[in-house]
């Protein structure tokens, strides 16, 4: 691999580069680059302050045997607190976010994240609790987790849930291992899991890690699972099927009942990828559709902010027959005594085991129950209605300007396409995505789902106002008309008003620079 030459050996000997940073360059300058923290570094400068402890100050030589002792300290940046603050504040000004503007990134449910949840996640009584403290000392946390599990089961129509998975993909793999455990318990060694061709990439990747082979079924011309193809693919070697409903085209799988029947008939299980749950809150429950295993993305549906890529939480809820296999230990409500409700831990009898270092992303779980409690059953239904209403408004607004491969009532997101724009004017979905950044919006998801050519997947979410939708609609209209008028014009020049211009992704992969030390 060519670029490996460019990566030097252990950089622990490599010190930070001499200071050359311009701690002054502020983002008001638009394109001015911010130096790395290593360039702001000056040997001997520091910002840390530690408390006085009165503990004897034994030298490191008395504490660490020579062969284990490091020869020189780990080289890190050496900056003043003032420069630390300047650096990361300036970086924050080079970052788009939900709090700055609309983020219609399809499949990601970038709704507004209530600040209340931040306050909850910061409560010393939650954030300051050690995960290994015995149950009697963490009754509040256990009650909270049980409350959340109950709520998630009510929302999905399942019997019980594990809160351990740290994200959707972790939930998927957990679900597939539950599937495997179920079949093992019935002495079956099934080898295949079915996935529609519109599925998210984590689904097939999880199937492989679950020890299964992927069988892909095509979508029909209505964008739903092709029933004939599904039936053809089904046999007793099929452990189950993974679906998200609404699917990644933003369409509801109308024949979900038929699908469920067919899969169950061959003894397979139905897995529900909950990434799109936002569309059906309070409208229909996966359990009622016939799903056996359901993961939820609390960082989508239940408003945990994405943190630039994480953390999330991907609880997995299951039907009664799978409860004994859930990961553990699980927080449970113990019999009530005079002191009121007590909570504890319990290991499901046939548990597949742990899937997290501790109990899952607990502070994310606390955000979720807070969000759910504020909305209540009634509020969650309104969430789904408004999300779907917004997506359909965008669909109708942009009809005629972009391709609408499946132009019927969609759910929480709509998949448009720039296929015609590309054919006629050479403007690709990517160009549209870059151009819309100049208008102050984040881009839709592009080139997903893979089955739609030049896909532009738009998920406004329920928290955007009609005024914002109108502004987004105008912007996308302007872009389409402009493309036609200028016959493409310098579409490739966009974006021009962002902190940096279009980024050379090929170069990044060609000559890899994964750290500040790599090319130095």
């Amino acid at each position, binding site marked *: 691999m060519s670029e490996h030459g460019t990566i030097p050996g*252990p*950089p*622990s000997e490599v010190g930070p580069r001499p200071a050359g940073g311009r701690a002054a360059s502020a983002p008001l300058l638009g394109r001015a*680059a911010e130096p790395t923290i290593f360039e702001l*570094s000056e040997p001997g400068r520091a*910002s*840390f*302050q*530690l*408390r006085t*402890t009165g*503990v004897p100050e*034994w030298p*490191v030589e008395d*504490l660490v045997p020579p062969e284990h002792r*490091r020869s020189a300290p*780990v080289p890190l940046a*050496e900056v003043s607190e003032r420069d630390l603050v300047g650096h990361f504040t300036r*970086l924050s*000004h080079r*970052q*788009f*976010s939900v709090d700055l503007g609309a983020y219609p990134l399809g499949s990601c449910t970038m709704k507004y994240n209530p600040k209340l949840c931040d306050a909850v996640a910061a409560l010393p009584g*939650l954030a300051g*609790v050690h*995960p290994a403290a015995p149950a009697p000392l*963490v009754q509040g946390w256990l*009650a909270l987790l049980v409350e959340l599990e109950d709520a998630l089961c009510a929302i999905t129509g399942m019997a019980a849930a594990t809160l351990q998975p*740290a*994200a959707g993909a972790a939930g998927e793999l957990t679900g597939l291992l539950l599937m495997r455990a179920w079949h093992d318990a019935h002495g079956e060694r099934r080898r295949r899991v079915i996935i529609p061709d519109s599925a998210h*990439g984590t689904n*097939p990747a999880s199937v492989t890690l679950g*020890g299964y082979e992927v069988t892909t079924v095509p979508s029909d011309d209505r964008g739903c699972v092709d029933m004939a193809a599904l039936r053809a693919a089904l046999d007793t070697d099929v452990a189950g099927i993974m679906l998200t409903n609404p699917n990644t085209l933003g369409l*509801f799988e109308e024949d*979900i009942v038929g699908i469920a029947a067919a899969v169950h008939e061959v003894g397979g299980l139905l897995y529900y990828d909950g990434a799109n749950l936002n569309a*059906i809150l309070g409208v229909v429950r996966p359990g009622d559709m016939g799903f056996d295993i359901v993961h939820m993305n609390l960082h989508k549906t239940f408003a945990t902010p*994405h943190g*630039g*890529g*994480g*953390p999330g939480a991907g609880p997995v809820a299951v039907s009664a027959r799978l409860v004994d296999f859930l990961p553990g230990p699980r927080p449970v409500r113990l019999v009530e005594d005079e002191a009121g409700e007590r909570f504890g831990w319990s290991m499901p009898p046939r548990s597949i*085991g742990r899937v*997290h*270092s501790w109990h899952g992303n607990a*502070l994310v779980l606390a955000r979720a129950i*807070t969000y759910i409690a504020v909305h*209540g*059953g009634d*509020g969650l239904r*309104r969430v789904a209605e408004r999300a779907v209403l917004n997506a*359909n408004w965008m669909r109708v607004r942009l009809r005629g300007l972009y391709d609408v491969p499946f132009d019927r009532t969609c759910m929480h997101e709509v998949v448009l396409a720039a296929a015609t724009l590309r054919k006629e004017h050479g403007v690709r979905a990517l160009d549209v995505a870059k151009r819309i950044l100049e208008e102050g919006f984040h881009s839709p998801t592009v080139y997903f789902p893979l089955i739609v050519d030049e896909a532009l997947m738009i998920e406004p979410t329920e*928290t*955007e*106002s009609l005024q914002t939708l109108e502004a987004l609609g105008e912007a996308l209209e302007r872009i389409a008309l402009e493309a036609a008028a200028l016959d493409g014009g310098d579409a490739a020049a966009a974006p021009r008003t962002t902190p*940096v*211009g279009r980024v050379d992704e090929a*170069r990044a992969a060609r000559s*890899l620079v*994964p*750290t500040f030390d790599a090319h130095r």
Partner: protein
Amino acid sequence: MGDYLPHTEAEIAAMLDFIGLGSLDELFEAVPEALRIVGGLDLPVGQSEPDVLAHVEALADANAARADRLVCFAGAGAYDHEVPPVVRALAGRSEFVTSYTPYQPEVAQGVLQAMFEFQTMAARLAGLPVANASLYDGASALVEGVNLGVAASGRPGVWVSAGIHPHWRRVLGTFAAGTGHQLRTIPLLDGRTVWPADAGPADAGLADAGPPEGTAHPGPPGVLVVGYPNYLGCLEDLGEARRRCDELGAQLVVAADPVAAGILRSPGEWGADVVVGEGQALGTALGFGGPYLGLFACSAAHVRRLPGRLVGETVDRTGTTAYVTTLRAREQDIRRERATSNVCTNQTLMAVTAAIQLGWLGTAGLAEVALRCARGARYCRQALLGLDGVTPLTGDTPVVREFAVHTPVPAATVIDRLAEEGFLAGVALDALTGGEDPSCADPAQALLVAVTERRTARQIDTYVTAFDKAVRS
């Protein structure tokens, strides 16, 4: 009462009209009648923010073990370190908190550059040239490390030191059921791994969980896994582990603590192929176990097998330095079933936090914190071993950061009694291992104690006095 929806009734009517529908219900006509929920969800109705906050505050109040009430001597992968207001303030900037994965680098340079800086720091800590942009937690990082090792060596056999955190070993077992790795737990002597001479059988318990193809005798292992320090605070002989790997043609995966790294020779220098770790200690709250930070670094040779996101430096069309996620072809959204991992959402915000915390500590600060932890552990350990009936669990193997002792009464009892005195005494080993465990003779009477730079001599002294009372009464 209680939602965040902007829509007025008038707007809803106008929007429905615009899309040609008569009611909100019509939006869901694709949903089969029979499946639709009637009478709403079985949940309480919405409450106002202040009402909900009052409820959650009551729950928080019911947690006796909060660090502001019980002085924390518990560790085992979750530590009570200093996190200054400046780090909280910066990590809380809403641009970092409310953005998605940087799919559009032109408007995500803030997160991308922070990731690039984090990767640099994580790589320096590991002593390896490449680190990714985070995984879920220590356990998931270990799983990915083993997956990489097995893929690289082409052999499913994995020798896992009993010095690896029991929860992590359990998680490894859980996922081995899918990958078919053959795990074998290698016991400790005086807190140090004793690598076997023979190839030996895989753990029965875990083989069970293994896939059909799984043979109980996988032959020579493809991967060796060891902790540094291990979860009992002991310094393992990484030189020996490296030698065994070379003999066996196996990959060396080291689970290292990023704070102890401040004074320890780096695993990279010892010759580790992959270094994983739990990054919570780098600025993240105890938070009842999550969200934490999975650290992952590897040698240059493995970069194409790296799990998760990787940020690289490049330029924009004007030649300005810019950052972007790279080597994307490894990832699930492109490689799908042949991806190196299924991870998508990771723990970026914790990685940003770690970069800020390490920026605050700096070169001198990290070394100082590591040193203070070692001093505190020594100070506390000496005092505890001075009490009758309290004996070392790991002989006189050198320990840093934390240590384990045998207690004359059950460790759980010690913890209960010290809670009364205002201390979280530590972690009972059997609580971690769920009973008998190759890392320790009698886990029920073993207590794991961690001392961070936040613990004062006064706190330690009163703790030891209370401890004495607890084990004698």
